[in-house]
């Protein structure tokens, strides 16, 4: 009885709050509303932060719009709920920035045909749902060039999340770069099976360092691996955003995302009514990916070499996956004078020569 009473009191309290909050329903103008959904904290120093930087950039480029975000959204049932919430609140564009948001987004997109959905890093699309991503393998390759110069033990560690084609492609491009400047270099891979797990990332880095690695490249979202390298006086290569502030003595360079470039393009297209569902895969030339400035420990001859190659990538005369490319067993995968096609790049599930590690097999 007492309990029921307390519930009634609670409900009264609740309704009181609703009225106390007042009817501040302001008249809505025709403002374009854009929502972002992050899998981690917006200030994680990595992936989600790179997207939030993109959001802020977008807000600056097109001041007339309203942007907001939800952070720490778990993949699965809650993600779908958050997207539906935004759709119901009259948001016009929703950007979901984690692979696991793909299937929930596809379901929501079906129910809201007038809203534009954009999913980062996935492969499923609908009439009102596009995907976007960047050719990070280009900066990966350039970072690999620098790593090849800088390693003394010829043992480079790579802390990697999942064995998705994206990550495999990154490791490959990085290794091709490292082997170009140092044919003896080997890239050793450890999977963390998580995008963001600072503890595991530091452990993986420490394992690699204990095995004589003197450079740790990070393909994961926190700077923990680089901090582990700095502690032992070794080098690291950052990912997502310029990570030099987290480990200034260790970070040679970082491969970084500039999502704002794409966000601005997509929102402008929606405003102009020309937006169409597509699978966007931007390059260094488009400005969506780049290499951060080098740290002070990188000598000038290395910088010049990398810059020369960067120019070739920018003017389109060079691609990291130009033949000859050999796989781990030494078999020729891409002939001299040929190039890996985009489809092959997007589905790549084999490592190039020089990578030490294996890709977990998936079942039926």
């Amino acid at each position: 009885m007492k309990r029921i009473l307390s519930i009634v009191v609670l409900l009264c309290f609740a309704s009181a709050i609703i009225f106390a909050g007042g009817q501040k329903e302001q008249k809505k103008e025709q403002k374009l509303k854009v929502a972002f959904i992050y899998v981690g904290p917006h200030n994680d120093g990595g992936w989600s932060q790179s997207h939030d930087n993109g959001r802020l950039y977008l807000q600056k480029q097109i001041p007339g719009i309203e942007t907001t975000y939800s952070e720490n959204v778990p993949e699965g049932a809650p993600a779908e709920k958050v997207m539906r919430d935004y759709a119901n609140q009259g948001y016009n564009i929703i950007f979901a920035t984690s692979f696991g948001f793909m299937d929930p987004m596809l379901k929501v997109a079906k129910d809201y045909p007038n809203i534009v959905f954009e999913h980062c890093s996935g492969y499923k699309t609908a009439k009102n749902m596009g995907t976007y991503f960047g050719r990070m393998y280009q900066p990966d390759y350039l970072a690999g060039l620098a790593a090849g110069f800088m390693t003394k033990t010829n043992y480079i560690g790579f802390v990697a999340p999942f064995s998705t084609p994206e990550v495999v492609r990154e490791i490959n491009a990085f290794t091709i770069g490292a082997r170009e400047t140092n044919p003896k270099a080997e890239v050793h891979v450890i999977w963390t099976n998580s995008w963001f797990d600072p503890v595991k990332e530091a452990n993986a880095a420490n394992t690699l360092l204990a095995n004589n690695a003197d450079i740790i490249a990070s393909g994961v979202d926190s700077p923990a691996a680089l901090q582990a390298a700095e502690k032992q006086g070794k080098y690291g290569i950052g990912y997502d955003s310029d990570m030099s502030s987290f480990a200034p003595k260790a970070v040679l360079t970082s491969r970084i995302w500039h999502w704002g470039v794409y966000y601005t393009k997509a929102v402008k297209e929606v405003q102009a009514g020309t937006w169409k569902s597509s699978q966007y895969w931007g390059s260094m030339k488009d400005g969506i990916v780049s290499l951060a400035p080098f740290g002070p420990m990188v000598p000038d001859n290395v910088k010049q070499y990398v810059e020369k190659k960067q120019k070739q990538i920018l003017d389109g005369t060079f691609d990291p996956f130009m033949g000859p490319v050999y796989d781990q067993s030494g078999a020729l995968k891409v002939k001299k004078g040929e190039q890996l096609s985009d489809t092959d790049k997007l589905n790549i599930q084999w490592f190039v020569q020089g990578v030490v590690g294996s890709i977990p097999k998936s079942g039926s």
Partner: protein
Amino acid sequence: MIGLIIGALVIASKGTNPFTAYKALIMGAFGSSYALSETLVTATPLIIISAGLIMVFNMKFWNIGAYGQYIMGAIFSSFFALNSAPTTSPFLLLTMMSIAGIIGGALWALIPALLKLVWEVNEVVTTLLLNYVALFVLKYFMYGPWRDPASHGFPLSKMFSPNAQLPIILNHTRIHFGIVFGIIIVLVIYVIIKKTRFGYENRVIGENNIAANYAGINIFKNTLIAMAVSGGIAGLAGMTQISGVIHMLQLEINPNYGYTAIIVAWLAALNPIAVLVIAILIGGIEAGGYHIQMIMHVPFGIVGVIESSILFALLGGEIFKTYRIDFRRRR
């Protein structure tokens, strides 16, 4: 009530107006038919699991393992969802999945029950630790045999065929058939614990198991049955969640409902009927929590703070109900 005030203090300390925050929370939970439907979707697994927990909490058997039983239920039922022909009739397939879910959860729950009965191992420890084991079993299947080759290396299974999905019972919402399961289970559990000899015996075991033994109650049998029912129901909740909401097996199937359900069971004072109300309230706090975040940009952790302070205040209140503080000077 006190919990809400503590929550308000926390929100205020973050520099936002707690009243507007609570308003956002309530609007996000009950403010529209859509919000209400989302609250019910969140409440569904809570109703089911809590009802099952009450079964064993009544005999003072502390099952903290609904989390793991939920996962095992999801895994067992996925076996049928992923391995039967998509043309299997929905009724047959869903029945098989439900039964598999119940068996999965029940088996997982029987382990700590047996450990307790045979070797007197504390069930709080075993049920809790088995949660992590269940998570690893799930990881094995998601990284191994059940990973969809088309998932580009991500730990996701194939999408369930439409026949393996629980039907939506209200158009344009996500409310699925699981809520019907929930209501039936609540009623059945109510009858069992209040009206049957089995339920009465269990309460006696909970109050005093030596007396129960003396009275000729078979503690061994009763504990096993009650724990199998409790775990089986948690397993069924796992099945309804993947079949009704997520539509595939993946790493993130939100087993945390297994912990929240403990709060629900206690707030409902172990009364299955009250579970319906409390689960909807707590479901509302969770569903509305995303709404607060969207509108006010307070971190989602606030929801956890509010929930736990409510529980804390309530359990604190229990002390005053059982004992009275006597301010008279000692004579």
